[in-house]
């Protein structure tokens, strides 16, 4: 059998020998066959030219794959992943920082202070400028850029500005149709989106005021008032000795000078959020001059009762004036 086994392995069996070999093999049990194999394994040199290094590497590759070790192919993949991670990680970090900053900029972009009806508020801006907002007004600014190059704000409504003096950084107000540039002043500004005119009443310092529509610029001196027609953009500058009247609201007063009676009533209605019904025929043509408090309705009614000799009747938020 050893001879036949050798010939079998070396492919030198003749067809006749094959028949004999098959017969002997079928008679042999596994243990004896193992003994035969062990001998040839241990004692023989084996032709090592039958296999190429490439083939052995390929087998090793599948061995490695089987035992869960990355072969060269897989390690290339891993390498690629690592390279990708190396590139992407800083990218992620930067984009995170960038987005965070963007986000915080967005969040801090505009700080808005606004007042509702019958609300007033005084705010102090980062540079020390004080702004008192009248009812239904709003002021917005960007805390990041404010007081960097200049001090820029957006404004709507009526406000009393006490601008902190800083000659290096202009205080700029962007309002409806207006761009107002000051360095350090005190003035009252009324630019309501719903109004037809804007008014700036300067108490101290100087203000340069430009109409965006016409592009014309005016420089105001104290006790001057600029009135802009919102439709045409034209600015008219007038001198006004009673310039502080404009900011009377701020001190809790409403100042009327030759104001038509109904216009005054309307101002009171708006200020106190009440409805006033006046039963009179010729009082419409009357004009009123005087100061009325903004925070004491009883006193207002008393003043009016005394001035016009009528009786005020309050029912809820409705006031009826009836003449005796």
């Amino acid at each position: 059998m050893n001879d036949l086994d050798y010939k079998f392995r070396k492919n030198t069996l003749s067809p006749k020998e094959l028949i004999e070999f098959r017969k002997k093999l079928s008679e042999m049990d596994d243990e004896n066959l193992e003994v035969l194999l062990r001998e040839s394994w241990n004692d023989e040199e084996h032709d090592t030219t039958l296999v190429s290094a490439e083939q052995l590497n390929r087998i090793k590759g599948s061995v490695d794959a089987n035992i869960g070790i990355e072969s060269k192919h897989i390690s290339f993949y891993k390498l690629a992943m690592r390279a990708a991670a190396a590139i992407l990680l800083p990218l992620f970090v930067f984009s995170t920082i960038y987005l965070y900053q963007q986000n915080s900029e967005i969040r801090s972009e505009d700080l808005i202070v606004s007042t509702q009806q019958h609300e007033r508020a005084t705010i102090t801006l980062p540079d020390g400028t004080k702004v008192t907002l009248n009812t239904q007004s709003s002021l917005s600014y960007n805390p990041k850029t404010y007081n960097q190059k200049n001090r820029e704000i957006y404004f709507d409504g009526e406000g009393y500005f006490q601008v902190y003096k800083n000659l290096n950084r202009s205080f700029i107000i962007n309002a409806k149709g207006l761009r107002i540039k000051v360095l350090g002043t005190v003035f009252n500004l009324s630019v309501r989106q719903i109004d037809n005119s804007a008014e700036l009443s300067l108490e101290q310092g100087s203000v340069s005021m430009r109409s965006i529509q016409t592009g014309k610029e005016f420089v105001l001196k104290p006790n001057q008032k600029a009135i802009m027609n919102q439709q045409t953009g034209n600015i008219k500058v007038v001198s006004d000795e009673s310039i502080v009247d404009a900011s009377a609201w701020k001190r809790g007063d409403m100042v009327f000078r030759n104001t038509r009676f109904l216009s005054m009533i309307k101002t009171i209605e708006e200020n106190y959020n009440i409805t006033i019904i006046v039963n009179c025929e010729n009082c419409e043509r009357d004009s009123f001059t005087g100061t009325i408090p903004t925070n004491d309705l009883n006193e207002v009614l008393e003043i009016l009762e005394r001035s016009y000799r009528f009786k005020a009747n309050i029912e809820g938020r409705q006031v009826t004036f009836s003449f005796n």
Partner: protein
Amino acid sequence: MSHEININEQILIYELKKGSLKAFNEIYRMYSKRLYNYSVQFTKSSVEAEEIVQDVFVKIWQSREKILQKETLRSLLFIMAKHLLINAYRSTANHLVYEEYVDYLDVVSTENAHVRMEYDEFESKVYKVIKELPHTQQEVIALSRFQNLTNKEIAQKLSLSEQTVKNQLSLGLKTLKDKVKYLWIIMIAFIFNYFSFLFFILGTLAQKHCL
């Protein structure tokens, strides 16, 4: 490979047991070639020999911690491989293709040993020939020679009479043998042509030189 105690191998075994891949790779380098060449003697087919090598080395890695051999892994490799080798031994020896291959070698090897087909190539040619046989013959040959069923079993399986199975089988095998022989004849004829052409050229050249 020598039987001397190899200090280097002892270290490698020690490292392997601790899980060193480097040692495993080195051991693969030392033994894979030998194992492959040994196995291919029984499988005759390179694909099956590759499978044995792969299987053995995977097993060695997986049971690396339990390795008792201290000096050499030669015997361990055999223990890991023996069942696969014995199976391959019996299966190849009794295989139809091997039988054909022996016939083929008997004709070819004596004179043209250098041009003979390797077993793999021969095997695929035989399978090609089998595929060209009528369907029933293909089936009967496959069941009889590759799955080692008896004629009776095949008859039952294919709902044929035993006699038909016998007839189909002998017919199929005869056609197969003829066709396989035809393959050799073509090849041998080609070789003869090649040589005669070569001699013709040489002859003419020699003549020219003599003149």
